[in-house]
């Protein structure tokens, strides 16, 4: 194949070299397009990755909760239902024999981590100040695989024992807490506990840093009067975008009430999706603009080469050969522009990472680069198609006379 089209490549190359300014201009156009596509794609991917990481950094992919209490609806006759319903209040519901459930879920390879949680409301008291919080009883070894709490500690240590508690940075500020300080937890019905602040974390999310409080699983069970039981199982899955499917699967498997992060953050996902669409459109239009630019320059170039095409035809070149010469030229221009464009795109990304907002940094994925390369070469060939076809159809007798 390569040996076969040797002369076509040679002619295409010589034509390009003979007209360096034109070649340079088209290459720059392609390079700019490629650079923009690489940069925008990388930036958007990075931004979305960053947003998702931030979101999922503080919540489980999937959460299994005890089945909710519901009213039984008596059938009057033949499937007819009388419905006049007052919704039931939902007290804390416990998942029983959860140890067996955890063992079952641990055996599923796509689930990377499973962690039992006891969650319920409580009041924190320090001196005369109080604050309402959500108590989370956790098994630290398991829980840190779901949410990277140890990585977000700003004071003290990630330690949850029978007398230890982890509080958020905002709550600590409100109550004037330091690591080592004592606080009192009240969880209704006179159940209280005196605990020592082992560490202070900051997740960077106001709500979490003000309201969440982590204690030992057993401590929480006692406080919330759920001895032996838990209220939820947090699950981490390998592919985050399968959370919805896994949610459904786990619901059928366990019969529990299941929430997944995708449904919980449907607004965010919507926003990300529209952002992706916008990116796609920008890429498409940039590609189109560059393609049209190449096509118009090549159209002029083909007219300039009319006489040469006539000579080549008189010397025995076929129409297909002429077609291939100009298609090759398009591909070469595309490839050349893409190489410059890659340098440009990487340069832009470097500038963004080092001199930009610094809110987050992005890295180029190989597949983005490879896609951009193929798009550039493809649009080069595509843009050359019409002019090339035109050149291949020149009447040689007339073309030779063209001045």
């Amino acid at each position: 194949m390569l040996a076969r089209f040797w002369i076509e490549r040679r002619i295409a190359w010589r034509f390009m070299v003979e007209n360096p300014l034109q070649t340079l201009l088209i290459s720059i156009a392609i390079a700019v397009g490629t650079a923009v596509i690489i940069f925008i794609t990388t930036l958007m991917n990075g931004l979305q990755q960053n947003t998702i990481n931030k979101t999922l950094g503080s919540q489980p992919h999937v959460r299994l909760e005890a089945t909710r209490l519901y009213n039984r609806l008596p059938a009057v006759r033949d499937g007819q239902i009388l419905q006049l319903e007052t919704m039931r209040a939902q007290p804390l519901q416990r998942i029983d024999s959860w140890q067996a459930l955890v063992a079952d879920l641990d055996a599923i390879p796509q689930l990377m981590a499973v962690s039992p949680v006891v969650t319920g409301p409580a009041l924190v008291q320090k001196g005369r100040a109080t604050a309402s919080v959500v108590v989370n009883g956790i098994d630290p070894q398991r829980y840190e695989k779901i949410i990277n709490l140890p990585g977000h500690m700003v004071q003290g240590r990630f330690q949850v024992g029978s007398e230890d508690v982890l509080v958020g940075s905002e709550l600590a500020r409100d109550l004037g807490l330091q690591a080592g300080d004592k606080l009192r937890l009240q969880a209704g019905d006179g159940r209280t506990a005196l605990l020592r602040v082992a560490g202070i974390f900051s997740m960077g999310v106001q709500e979490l840093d003000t309201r969440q409080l982590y204690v030992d699983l057993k401590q929480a069970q006692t406080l919330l009067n759920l001895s032996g039981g838990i209220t939820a199982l947090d699950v981490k899955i390998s592919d985050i975008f399968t959370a919805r499917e896994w949610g459904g699967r786990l619901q059928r498997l366990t019969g529990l009430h299941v929430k997944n992060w995708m449904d919980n953050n449907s607004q965010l996902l919507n926003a990300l999706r529209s952002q992706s669409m916008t990116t796609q459109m920008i890429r498409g239009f940039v590609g189109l603009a560059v393609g049209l630019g190449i096509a118009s320059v090549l159209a002029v170039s083909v007219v300039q080469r009319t006489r040469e095409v006539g000579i080549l035809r008189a010397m025995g070149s076929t129409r297909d050969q002429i077609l291939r010469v100009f298609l090759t030229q398009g591909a070469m221009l595309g490839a050349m522009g893409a190489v410059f464009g890659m340098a440009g795109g990487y340069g832009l990304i470097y500038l963004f990472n080092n001199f930009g907002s610094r809110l987050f940094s992005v890295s180029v994925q190989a597949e983005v680069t490879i896609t951009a390369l193929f798009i550039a070469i493809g649009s080069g060939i595509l843009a050359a198609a019409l002019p090339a076809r035109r050149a291949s159809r020149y009447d040689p007798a007339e073309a030779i006379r063209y001045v």
Partner: protein
Amino acid sequence: MSEVVLRLQDVNKVFEPDTPRAVHVLHDISLELHAGELTALIGPSGSGKSTLLNLMGLLDTPSSGELWIDGQATARLDDAGRTRLRAHHIGFVFQFHHLIGAFSVLDNVLMPLMLQQGKPATAQLDYARHLLDAVGLPNIEQRSAKALSGGQQQRVAIARALVGKPALLLADEPTGNLDTQTAEEVFALFEQFNRDTGCATLIVTHDPRLSARCPRVIELLDGRIVSEPGAL
């Protein structure tokens, strides 16, 4: 008589037929060219010389009639078939030499071969260099074709036309653009190659001194052959 390289039978050419602007350029042309023959095609401007040459070179197709090259009928061939015959049997020299400026002198000479087969073989390279020697242009093979004078370019064009060892060499006023001295030298090359390679050679010319040196002269007037002093 030696073998027939080109035969035309009742060839007509009408441009834009079936329109009010239809022009009947060639009328019932019948002729034969033989191997080793050196023929001049003369006639005033507009007599149809170039049209006839384009038909002979398969750059154009006749409106009616038949044209054989090396015994092969061509009227019903498609573009690819005509291209193939042109590549293997016909060499062209044009008035305005028409080299490809983007290539070196040697590449220009080799172009007809490279279009057929890709990279040239050593023997073909040697032959191209031999031809450049023969047209009096040794040691300039790597120069750009654009850098040559008109006479030099026409010599390169002759070498290019001959590199494929064609059976038929067609030249459209090859000396029309050259001064008398250079025209003489270029014409002498045609005589020499016609003798050495035995290819049938047809030269369109306005110059009566040059046509007088051809053993056969075909005169065209208003699209008809009016006299053939050197006829069979």
